């Protein structure tokens, strides 16, 4: 029995290694992913957001405003168009993301301490750019608005300290925890690389059953009298070990080289990942147990693996999804894994929560394997 299992495992390793496409996907897919995503998000925060300023006033006051914008941390003035239409055209063509229009009477109204309007437009077609641009603009407008207000109070004879206090009535302190600089790389790089990894694992697991039963060599296995349980247990063990081996360099790069935060400890993270690897394998095995061909099995696997990351609530909170979708989302192990990665790697949310997440993923795996066993026994 042991000899049979070892032979099946040895053959599976050979199979995975000799299938050049599969080998490259498994070994390089997630590694290339993490390098690529690190490259993409290496800037960590969006700086130098291209800004176009239309100064229709051209007074000392309006130039001061333009200087304020120029000195803003995340904005970069790339053009000073002559008209609103010219600015609109620049935003349409993607040359500017933020547009500022200073009206003709800006200087006059500021001098008279009257309310004055400055139009700031943001290109909302790219939501990430738009959110960052809005935050950057808000910082500038808050400062300029406060400065103008203090100046107005001073003009009315209010002492400087009182005027400043009036604008600091409620001092709200913002303090982002776990990712103080709101670093995109912290948030996205590891999750996106793990998303590629889980897709590669699903693809591999999708070959587990149909990869044998769909081939003529299945007859040799049947004729030899090897039990299906022994065969698929041996193969599955190899798959899960390979999945864990392929995630190690991703973690090594993420935590050792790119210095992404890891607060829950490496062994705990590995254990958490192992349970997810088993769950992903169970999904692939299930797909491969009822698929009519290897190609169909891969298609079914991708139907789960591709949307699962979006559904996981990592990039868009589950709470904001329609209520009817919640049970579907929670039936995916991906939801627990990606939420868990956030909670444990970033925040070290504790063993209690991690155990709960792992039990849920293990339960999902048990269901998928049980269903797969049912399909296999009927085949």
């Amino acid at each position, binding site marked *: 029995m042991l000899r049979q299992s070892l032979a099946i495992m040895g053959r599976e390793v050979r199979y995975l290694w000799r299938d050049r496409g599969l080998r490259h996907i498994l070994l390089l897919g997630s590694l290339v992913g993490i390098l690529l995503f690190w490259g993409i998000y290496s800037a960590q925060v969006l700086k130098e957001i291209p800004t176009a300023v239309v100064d229709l006033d051209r007074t000392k006051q309006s130039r001061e405003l333009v200087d304020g914008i120029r000195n803003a941390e995340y904005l970069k003035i790339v053009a000073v168009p002559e008209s609103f239409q010219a600015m609109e055209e620049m935003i349409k063509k993607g040359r500017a993301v933020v547009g500022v229009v200073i009206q003709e009477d800006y200087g006059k109204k500021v001098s008279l301490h009257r309310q004055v309007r400055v139009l700031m437009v943001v290109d909302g077609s790219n939501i990430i750019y738009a959110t960052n641009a809005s935050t950057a603009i808000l910082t500038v407008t808050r400062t300029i608005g406060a400065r103008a207000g203090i100046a107005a109070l001073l003009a009315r004879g209010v002492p400087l300290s009182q005027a400043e206090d009036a604008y600091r009535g409620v001092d709200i302190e913002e303090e982002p925890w776990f990712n103080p600089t709101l670093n995109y790389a912290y948030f996205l790089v590891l999750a996106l690389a793990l998303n590629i990894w889980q897709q590669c694992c699903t693809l591999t697991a999708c070959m587990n059953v149909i990869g044998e039963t769909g081939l*003529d060599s299945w*007859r*040799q296995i049947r004729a030899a009298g090897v039990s299906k349980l022994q065969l698929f247990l041996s193969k599955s063990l190899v798959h899960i070990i390979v999945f864990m081996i392929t995630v190690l360099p991703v973690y090594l790069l993420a935590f050792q080289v790119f210095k992404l935060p890891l607060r829950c400890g490496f062994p705990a993270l590995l254990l958490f990942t192992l349970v997810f690897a088993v769950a992903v394998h169970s999904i692939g095995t299930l797909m491969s147990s009822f698929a009519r061909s290897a190609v169909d099995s891969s298609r079914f696997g991708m139907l789960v693996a591709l949307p699962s990351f979006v559904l996981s609530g990592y990039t868009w909170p589950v709470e904001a999804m329609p209520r009817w979708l919640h049970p579907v989302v929670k039936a995916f192990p991906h939801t627990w894994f990606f939420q868990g990665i956030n909670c444990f790697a970033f925040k070290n949310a504790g063993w209690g929560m991690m155990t709960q997440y792992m039990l849920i993923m293990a339960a999902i795996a048990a269901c998928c394997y049980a269903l797969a066993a049912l399909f296999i026994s009927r085949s």
Partner: protein
Amino acid sequence: MGETEQGPKEAPVQPLLRVASLQQRIGRRAVLRNVSFEVFPGECFGIFGLAGSGKTALIHILAGVDRFTSGSVEILGHDIGKTEKFKQYTGLVTQKRSLFQDLTAGENLDFIAALKNAGREAIPPLVERLALEDYLKTPVSRLEAGVYQRLSLACALLNEPRLLLADELITGFDLNSRRLILDELAGYLERGGACVWSFSSMEFAGLMSRVGWLENGEITVYSPQAAGEKWNELERSSSPLSGEAHA
């Protein structure tokens, strides 16, 4: 007492394979209907039939690869519908290439030996007798038909089976491979093994002990000579020149 006077009675030879009222349906189509026959040690039982007659379905059922609808099949007393123990006594050569395409010839021998729980010591004599030494490192996908079939036979014999099930054991490949396979089969039968060999060319009927003629899912057992005569008769009657010949 009577026994002492008459000498010990010889025990009747038990069949290695007993097939009774075997039925196989695939969807609405009856592939095998009420098939019954027995195969004894040292016997080479041929199953003759044209394409689509159900030969492969029958061989796969006997090898425990496919299930059957009703009837009973016993191999060495084991009911193959209830247990898989009989598989340690059987070997299978399939019509389609069924060795592991991702492995070399040598790796196939090793792997199948392990699957069958056969000792590795069974490999070298088979490799020698079937002249496979030069091909052990060749991927099976690159083997010529004759060599491939020699390897298939070697794999099937690794566990020294009592019953060899061969589906179209010899087709149109080289004469050397054909000779090596027939020599190996003759030795295997001499050692007490039995063989069920499906074939579709009547030239092999002379190598069989008996021939089960499979037609429309039903089997009729003939002697090799009777099967040959029936075939000749059929050939004559279906020949476009038969009318002229009789006239």
